[in-house]
């Protein structure tokens, strides 16, 4: 079987390839940020008026630690009561699973095609 001869890549073309990769990378990182879809924010669902350590649900040992760290019930209020929201939609979950499976299917499929070519050239058939 004739060996595949890759073309020589010129300087400008090399540079262009690098720019493409960098743009894609920066895009993947910053596009979700710009669209404001990034991050899991915590929020306080039921605020407590005039909080004390007891109403914040802190026992003696816990409140002693907060005081040692320099907190008062007022300043610790948001820190203690903020919670994540773990509710999610089944559609979103299924979408994610589908995207991941599609991705792995795609790369394994293409890899297999390329790999067969590598092996047949290397081991000469």
């Amino acid at each position, binding site marked *: 079987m004739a060996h595949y001869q890759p073309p020589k890549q010129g300087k400008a073309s090399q540079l262009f390839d690098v720019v*493409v990769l960098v743009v894609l990378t920066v895009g993947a990182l910053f596009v979700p940020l710009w669209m404001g879809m990034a991050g899991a924010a915590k929020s306080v669902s039921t605020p407590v008026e005039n909080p004390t350590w007891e109403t914040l649900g802190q026992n003696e040992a816990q409140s002693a630690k907060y005081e040692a760290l320099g907190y008062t019930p007022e300043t610790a209020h948001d820190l203690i009561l903020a919670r994540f929201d773990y509710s999610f939609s089944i559609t979103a979950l299924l979408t994610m699973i589908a995207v991941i499976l599609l991705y792995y299917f795609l*790369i394994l499929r293409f890899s297999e095609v390329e790999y067969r070519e590598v092996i047949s050239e*290397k081991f000469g058939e």
Partner: protein
Amino acid sequence: MADVDITSQTMDGMGPHGTKVGLLRVLGPAHVWALGVGIVLVGEYMGWNFAVGKGGAYAALIACWFAGILYSCVAMIDSEVTSTVASAGGQYTQAKHIVGPLMAFNVGLYLVFAYTMLEAANAITAGYLFSVVASMTGHADALDQRPFIILVIMFLAWLNYRGVLATLTFNLVITSIAFLAILVLFLSTSGVIGTGIMEHAALFEGHELPYGWIGVLAAMHFGLWYYLGIEGTTQAAEEVRSPARALPFGTLAGIMTLLIAATLTWYVCSGVLPWEFLGDGVNGSVAPLFDTARLSGSNALIWLLGFGTLFATLASANGCINDASRAWFAMGRDKYLPGWFGAVHPKYRTPYRAIIFLVPIALIFALGAPLDQVITFSILSGLLGYTFMPLNIILFRRRWPLETIKRGYEHPFHPVPAITLLTLCGVTFFAVFLGYGTQLVAMIGFYIVVSLWFHFWRYRFVNRGAQFTMPWPKPRGY
């Protein structure tokens, strides 16, 4: 070539394929340990505590141990494969020989992004530490953190540029100090020496599992942070004196060190800091071990853990530059990326162009993106890499059963570790989905686009048969 000494300093790299300048084989098992643990140990000093916020203290401990199992599988699988595929690029080269070129390209990018993002996160943390020290020593205005962030990246890139031996010896020293600092903190606060200040029962009362069991699942997201990066030991493969021995030894010693450090860190911090404070890595405890030292009331411990935190961030950024540049270099050498990057410095024997190129990339992330976003990008790239590993080992054992290639290390109970790893990766994908589903999809979208780009455009520049460089027999089934 009958008397070739593969450990020779003058001969190395000058092999039969026409290499005139190659990487230098100078490292021992201790350097491998320092590279692996050095990258990861910062996760004990900051970041793991987000897992506490995700599900409470017990959830963080469960996540710590399940992530420990995940990484033990990673370390075992990696040790077996890499003891036969000893080459810069690590998992990238493994994928190229075992799964196929497109998988290899993806794995190479996972590595570069996981490490470059982690490097950026470390530089951000180091900048923050300088600002804390500045305000503690009476600096009135807010410190401009940018010059310190840039200095960390520039100095470590320069160190890497100048040679791998000095780089990883530096890592060995500062990583050891950071690890000893955790041991000292544990011994002096737990009651082993002097009176203990641990109050686990009282601090957990009423907050055992604040989110229930879904919180335990969610905690797995940041549970990875206890160990993320240990797989980077394989990047040193082309620079250690005897890879078949040093890589498995350094990697497995590394994961054991980390299991100890992670559990001690959890024990010490959760016994002193209330979970809401500990679990909020932004408004609460940015550096939990340092905060624990503050509450111990001992100035010596505060200084020790302060330096431990700084050293851990430096060691991690340093190892990340080393690993990311090796992966980038290996891909350049094979023309997966422009061949220009496949250059080795004739005097320092480092992949100097890859090192220089990644400096501005790291700076963009360190100066332009928020910390949790950068960390999540890093974790996701890592996670995609761990999902690849079980596929890798299953195909490796199928195409080259044990009797066909001599391995430097054979991992036990195959395929149990592979299946365990795959299952835990699935759980972690779900955990990431709970908080950062959009990034997950954006990120996989990115990998799909670059995969198409590679398959239909970039791959034409790659030599087909010649990229398979291992002296292995033909794989079964082909």
